[in-house]
């Protein structure tokens, strides 16, 4: 696994442990943060003479630097039946391993919250730095056939730490928009990076003519369609409209979504991650 996600934070992590991301702690960093009295940070090597002279109380001022801190990285995954469509499940597992590896490379902790109908303990991975546990989870996930809805997403926040974390939300968003609003509302304390997983088979690879019978993977309801070019265009338009609606909602909650429609690729995600910091 050589691919790494180059995630950067546009905010400061409150974690105590030194890591790779801008943090709120002061310590051995390169970025000047503020002056402090010598008594507060007793490091005579960092005494700022100019600041000490200018200090009206004539005390010694010491320069302190921002410490690079760790951040907790979480992956909240939609494990509803619709995520079993085509290669979404494989994509989920690949992303899980990539994200975990990247987090461990940065020295961050990685956690996983798998949401089906509700949140099951076997699909929970508390933030940690054990690659073995992640691999074991990936193997388990490979054997699982997804079923049910994604109602558990709304409760995912209960398994996140109180401090701000970096949360990857991997879903196909095939649930009502109101549910999505509720999920995003609950995750507002955290830095959410939504990854919307669609496959082109769903809407673009439909035939021009013919009868096709679709069975919904979640509700098992069957719909038979008489395909014709006009109707195909209508479906395509409906998906585009859906994409616009989703973007609108995500942006309303301060996060820019990434639609993965043409196959999963780490580079695409990296580009997205870099855009959001810049």
């Amino acid at each position: 696994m050589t691919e790494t996600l180059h995630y950067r934070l546009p905010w400061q992590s409150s974690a105590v442990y030194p890591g790779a991301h801008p943090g709120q702690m002061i310590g051995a960093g390169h970025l000047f943060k503020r002056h402090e009295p010598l008594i507060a940070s007793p490091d005579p090597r960092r005494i700022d003479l100019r600041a000490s002279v200018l200090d009206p109380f004539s005390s010694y001022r010491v320069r302190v630097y921002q410490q690079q801190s760790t951040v907790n990285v979480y992956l909240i995954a939609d494990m509803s039946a619709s995520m079993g469509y085509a290669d979404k499940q494989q994509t989920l597992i690949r992303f899980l391993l990539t994200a975990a590896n990247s987090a461990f490379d940065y020295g961050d902790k990685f956690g996983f919250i798998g949401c089906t109908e509700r949140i099951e303990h076997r699909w929970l991975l508390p933030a940690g730095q054990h690659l073995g546990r992640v691999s074991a989870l990936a193997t388990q996930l490979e054997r699982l056939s997804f079923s049910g809805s994604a109602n558990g997403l709304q409760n995912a926040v209960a398994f996140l730490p109180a401090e701000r974390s970096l949360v990857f939300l991997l879903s196909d968003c095939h649930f009502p928009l109101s549910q999505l609003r509720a999920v995003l509302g609950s995750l507002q304390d955290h830095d959410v990076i939504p990854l919307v997983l669609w496959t082109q088979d769903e809407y673009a690879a439909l035939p021009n003519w013919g009868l096709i019978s679709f069975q919904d993977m979640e509700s098992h309801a069957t719909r038979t369609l008489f395909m014709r070019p006009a109707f195909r265009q209508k479906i395509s338009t409906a998906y585009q409209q859906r994409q616009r609606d989703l973007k609108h909602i995500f942006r309303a909650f301060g996060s820019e979504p990434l639609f993965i429609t043409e196959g999963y690729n780490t580079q695409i995600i990296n580009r997205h991650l870099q855009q959001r910091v810049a």
Partner: protein
Amino acid sequence: MNWAVNSPWALTGLLLALLPLFNSGMRTSPAPWTALIPGDTLSAFVVCCLRLCAVAAIAGLVLGMAGLHRTEQSRERIGHGAHIVLLLDRSSSMDNTFAGRAPNGVDDGKDAGGTPPRMGKVEQRMERLPRAMHGAIAEESKATAARRLLTDFVKQRQTDLIGVAEYSTSPLFVMPLTENKNAVQAAIAATATPALGFTHVSKGLGMAISFFEQQPVTGSRIVLLVSDGAAAIDHDSEQKLREWFKQQQVRLYWIFLRTAGSPGIFDQPEDSRDDNAGAMPELYLHKFFLGLGSPYQAYEAESPDALKQAIADINKLENLPMHYFERIPKQDLSAVCYGVAAFLLLVLFGVKFFEVKR
């Protein structure tokens, strides 16, 4: 519209016709979220049509197996015409010609000697002309002539109810009164088989009259007796016939096919000793008919042409309005059911090729 089935228990199979309502019979493709697909009326309509097709196909097959049919019905009709019973003489003398000889086939050139073959055709055409008067060369028998002319007669009387009875030694029931002309034609054609022995006219008449017994009195009722001879009628039969003729209000037409040289209907006996029913049955039968009290007309035909004339007369006379019930026979509809089912299955089969598999 009276529908019925042969085996009602097979109708339980109609429950199977509900199957397509629960199962579309199509291979489904998984879709992550069908709610995203916009609604489509045309699709719904097509699917509905296909389901109905499937329901109808199964129902058609089941009804076909159950043997759906329309029961016998009668339709009220009003037309101009008559109830006619053709009473044909089947005595062996009918197989002779009007000249009293055995018919000698079609133009064997007996008299023409060495006539060249192309002359034969001319003679064949000539044969249709009346020849009895000047010595027949190749004549048809009386039965054949009667058959030919009666066939034409039946063809002209499209709205009549016609029945056929025959008699020789005993009466033969051939065809009840029916509007089915093909059946009557066939019955007349069937007299082509060789004839039988004697002439028992009273029983034949009795049977002819019995044809009217179950029929409503409408239009005119005719017994058309075609014979070439007569027989004495005993006293008891005379009584009964008188009664029946009056009861059934039947008109009688007698076409007497007279053989050359034999006594006719209207001949008066030369010798008073011959003036009895045994010696001159034709005259006495005629007298009996005259005394029946019901309308009666006799025609003495000495040739096919005269016979034709007699039939044309009757054709003209008997055209009263009449009211009758046409019987429509039981109609088997299982073939229609199977046909419809096969067509629908073919449609569904075609649609199957139109199905997209993913």
